[in-house]
């Protein structure tokens, strides 16, 4: 499959995608880099000259920086943990013989179609509101004091909301993976004397390894940049300020483009550290 002819054709056919993405990456990135070395305050006249690394220093030394990195990692990690674990459980459940499997799948897949803004609004107002939310009624019904989700369990709340949105994705990929497990392997393990729990631990789970890495990779890419959920629910208060959100505040609320751009560069670096780390794993998995 590799004649000279087809190789040059391949290069040609790849060109549009590569050039476009290169442009999409380089042009804004260059502009962001450019701004990041400037004192750029649109509210006060715009470009106020070069400032070297001032913005970078200011951004990391700000008291909000490290907490925001932590918050980002906690949310990403939390959502990944929840979606992968529950995803596995759900995938196994859905793989059991039952009536109306298709219908259940329709129910389970639904959150994936909901706009992040809408789901954040719905959860925040109709479920997690300490006065009118359904959870408050539920807690009161059982005689407990309603949890003030958005203020006292803010990170948990956001993690729950985001997990709800991404659970279908994880479940579906894991379900497809489970269904691809060679039936004979399970039979063999059963013959070998492994009870159901051990069949899961020794056969099913390792089989899912690849799917789990892919779920983690794709979700991480999306989770690193969650924004709407925070914007709508807490507006960054109560320790829910992620790096993305911090940049948003610098750029749009403080109108400090230089500082925000420096933050953007940090975010890109963080994202790429995570990405390289993940892609190592997936990259390896891709050929395997």
């Amino acid at each position, binding site marked *: 499959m590799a004649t000279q002819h087809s190789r040059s054709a391949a290069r040609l056919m790849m060109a549009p995608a590569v050039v476009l993405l290169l442009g999409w990456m380089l042009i804004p990135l260059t502009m962001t880099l450019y701004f990041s070395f400037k004192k750029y305050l649109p509210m006060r006249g715009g470009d106020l000259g070069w400032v070297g690394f001032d913005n970078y220093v200011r951004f990391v030394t700000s008291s909000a920086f490290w907490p925001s990195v932590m918050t980002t990692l906690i949310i990403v990690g939390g959502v990944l943990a929840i979606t992968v674990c529950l995803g596995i459980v759900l995938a196994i459940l859905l793989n059991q013989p039952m009536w109306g499997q298709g219908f259940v799948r329709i129910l389970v897949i639904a959150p994936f179609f909901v706009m992040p803004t809408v789901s954040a609004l719905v959860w925040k107002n109709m479920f997690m509101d300490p006065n009118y939310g359904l959870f408050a009624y539920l807690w009161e019904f059982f005689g407990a004091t309603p949890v003030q989700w958005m203020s006292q369990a803010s990170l948990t709340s956001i993690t729950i909301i985001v997990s709800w949105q991404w659970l279908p994705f994880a479940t579906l990929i894991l379900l497809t993976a489970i269904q691809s497990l*060679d039936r*004979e*392997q399970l*039979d*063999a*393990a*059963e*013959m*070998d*004397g*492994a009870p159901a729990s*051990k069949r899961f631990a*020794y*056969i099913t789970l*390792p*089989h899912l*390894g690849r799917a789990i890495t892919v779920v983690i990779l794709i979700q991480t890419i999306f989770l690193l940049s969650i924004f709407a959920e925070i914007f709508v629910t807490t507006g960054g208060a109560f320790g829910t300020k992620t790096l993305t959100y911090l940049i948003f505040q610098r750029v749009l609320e403080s109108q400090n483009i230089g500082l925000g751009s420096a933050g953007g560069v940090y975010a890109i670096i963080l994202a790429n550290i995570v990405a390289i780390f993940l892609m190592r794993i997936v990259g390896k998995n891709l050929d*395997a």
Partner: protein
Amino acid sequence: MGQIKLNQVSKSFGDVQVIPPLDLTIEDGEFTVFVGPSGCGKSTLLRLIAGLEDITSGHIDIDGTDATHVPPAKRGLAMVFQSYALYPHMSVRKNIAFPMKMAGLPADEQNRRIEAAAKALNLTDYLDRRPGQLSGGQRQRVAIGRAIVREPSAFLFDEPLSNLDAALRVGMRLEISELHKRLATTMIYVTHDQVEAMTMADKIVVLRAGYIEQVGTPLELYYKPRNEFVAGFIGSPKMNLIKGAEAEARGAPTIGIRPEHFDVSTTEGAWEGTIGVAEHLGSDTFLHIHGVAGCDAMTVRVDGELPVKHGDRIFLTPQADKLHRFDSQGLRVE
């Protein structure tokens, strides 16, 4: 120890009865082969014995005790699957150790058995590889190794060689035969390849659509097939079946004659035909002959080289004592 007895065992999937009630006894130490066309229920029968499927009615005795409701792992049987069903993420060593680990055997005993199995199966150098890094034949041996270490009272094989290429298949066939000779354990072996059945079996069970057509030693089936189905199924190339006048002349509505039971001449004989394709293997010559009355395409096998070619005329004389006669129901007539 490893006598297996099926009493009126039947199996239905939903409304479809795949195995009608059936009796079968497999003696201890016997090498039994289930053979039959695809979809006839061989695998199902094997899985019923293994306990991987529930039987719909009847009961299964293993070594004289009722095992119908015993879970697979407790039946003392080991199974080798068509796809090998190796655990892809475990090394060969771990694969082989798995059943022992599940049984909670002490580590040194595990190692002892692994080493022994690896030695017997020529796997010692590959113990630390993953199945993905092995060739087909090696994988097959790992699967057998995994079965051996459990020291089961019987082995079940489901078409274990069908994923291997011709040369390897011959080699592995021998290895399994030798294993049987050495272990003298009951083995049940499923295949649809009649050569495997003939060469390996002590006893062949020919199945068709869930029914047992004939049970017997390979040579019994070769010499005395109970019906046309068995006659056609056992022996390669297939037995030639001749109907019509030539058959009537020999005392039956249908007569059968195996390709190797002809006297061939370029000058004279009972029947005359034209050579379609002549296959010269050196050791044998296979002739595919058209134009013989009562049989569209007659296959003839001649030992050694016969210098004939496409389009030549040829004369055949069936060896009278090797003729098989079948009645109009296809049943053997003596």
